């Protein structure tokens, strides 16, 4: 190992510790936001914390200010499973898209932080409304095609819930992306195995998800520990390296719904339920305040 490689790895390790600290703060934001309005979706938000922190603080090339809707020369991210807006808003605010104090307006009247993300209130960082499921992959493909037409050599990311894959439009998009070699697209599936009515495999089984995407013509990568920052960084860097090779890339990200809060983890019951006062205190005791609460 030469010196420069060593330096890179040291830096990487230091970054991981820093990113984990940010995750801790983001988890505090998530539970506080949903508690404050007694509504919202903490489960999936907590499960995708490492992924979104990794994207916005390491993986993606992006510039929060000045905010550019067109993402010229920048990577673009689409949250297709819009109900996990708490983690999205927290990560956007913490990475500089808007003031963290605005997180306290989540789901309140006259807020830019609507229950599900929207461009309607002009919140920086959001490029499309989402909430009605299954639409984000198509939108991501559109932006990926625009980037190709514009000779803009950046990447488009999208995130989807596993339950969301039950929507037919996803498979229209999956067929299109492979057939048209949309290879500047990385679509990640939050594979936590849970949806509102219970286990995904009981509600409507996804079958062999990897084989499905592969048979559609995608390059598929799996991150088996989706709540381990090192694993997420390694996996997403691998995904980035796989772009530009004629295939869209699907990352199957294995996460735990409710990760980081012991009484929420692994259950679909916290998909869309807010903690009460006692539960909030219990949750906050498990995640250290690292960046300052909003």
């Amino acid at each position, binding site marked *: 190992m030469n010196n420069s490689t060593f330096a890179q790895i040291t830096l990487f390790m230091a970054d991981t510790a820093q990113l984990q600290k940010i995750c801790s703060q983001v988890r505090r934001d998530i539970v506080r936001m949903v508690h404050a309005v007694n509504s919202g979706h903490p489960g999936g938000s907590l499960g995708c914390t490492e992924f979104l922190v990794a994207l916005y603080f390491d993986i993606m090339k992006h510039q929060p200010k000045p905010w550019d809707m067109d*993402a010229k020369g920048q990577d673009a991210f689409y949250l297709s499973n819009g109900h996990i807006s708490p983690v999205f808003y927290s990560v956007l605010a913490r990475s500089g898209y808007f003031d963290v104090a605005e997180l306290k307006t989540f789901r309140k009247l006259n807020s830019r932080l609507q229950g599900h993300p929207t461009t*309607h209130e002009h919140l920086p960082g959001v490029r499309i409304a989402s909430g009605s499921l299954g639409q984000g992959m198509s939108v991501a493909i559109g932006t990926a095609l*625009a980037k190709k037409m514009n000779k803009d050599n950046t990447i488009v990311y999208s995130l989807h819930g596993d339950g969301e894959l039950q929507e037919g*439009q996803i498979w*229209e998009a999956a067929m299109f992306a492979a057939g048209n070699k949309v290879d500047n697209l990385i679509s990640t599936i939050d594979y936590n195995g849970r949806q509102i009515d219970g286990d995904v495999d009981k509600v409507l089984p996804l079958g062999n998800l990897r084989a499905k995407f592969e048979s559609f013509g995608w390059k598929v990568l799996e991150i088996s520990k989706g709540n381990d920052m090192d694993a997420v960084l390694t996996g997403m860097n691998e995904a980035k390296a796989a772009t530009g090779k004629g295939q869209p890339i699907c990352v199957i990200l294995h996460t735990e719904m409710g990760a980081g809060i012991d009484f929420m983890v692994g259950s679909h019951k916290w998909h869309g339920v807010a903690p009460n006062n006692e539960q909030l205190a219990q949750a906050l005791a498990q995640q250290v305040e690292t960046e300052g609460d909003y």
Partner: protein
Amino acid sequence: MITMKKYTYTEKKDTRSGFGAGLSELGKKNPNVVALCADLTGSLKMDAFQKEFPERFIQVGIAEANMIGIAAGLTIGGKIPFTGTFANFSTGRVYDQIRQSVAYSGKNVKICASHAGLTLGEDGATHQILEDIGLMKMLPGMTVINPCDFNQTKAATMAIADHKGPVYLRFGRPTVPNFTPADQKFEIGKAVLLQEGSDISIFATGHLVWKAIEAAEQLAEKGISAEVINIHTIKPLDEEAILNSVAKTKCIVSAEEHQMNGGLGDSIAQLLSRNTPYPQEYVAVNDSFGESGTPDELMTKYGLDTVNIVEAAMKVFNRK
């Protein structure tokens, strides 16, 4: 004797070809214009654009929901996407995709829809959407346009590229008299006064505009002076043109190839009820699906012919 402006035409042409011609011309003018089609390139007359600008033409296959989403995504990066399929698959089939990814998201997508209404003909009711104007006009921020002939459709196609925001452009399959001057500028939301009159206002859109002109001529022979206004833009409605005309005539016939519920007539009635209500008769499909038949047979059976406009005009005139 009522003096009438004479309208003539040299040929009958389909409005969808006006769309195709406008799109090709736009392709030359505006490098940001991108066209998407869901396996109906020939029917939508998008083949010329496809041939000339293959790098800006996206064939999505039979996947209209995906097409709307891709179009929304293309706007991020500055493209002006024009989606093309039948009106039924452009609206009802993809309503939620349009609502969330286009209208609510405020994206600059042009939804271009052919084979609207009964005049699609023999394919029957599964394809003859008569609810699309209503569906689209209910969406906040959506502009809804239904031009009357080839020239106007061509001009409208080019005009909507310069309009920032989502647009629904509706046209059709049959050949109809092409009487709009080729150089007439298309102004979104600005009605076109075709015939001045003092006894009745006929507000028509799309394929019913020519029939309204014919009806006015027949009414003149009966000594009734009908004003004919082409409401090519259903939303935003040209309220001033309508109110000015009605202030003079004090009765209305609305004419459209659409359900009575949710169509142009509804928009006019709503406007008048908020201002000064006057008697109104509707030439529209009355809560019914269509069926197989030739376009002319269907327009006759479902009461969307020149004779129906004349009858409605006589009726409303007597209600004054």
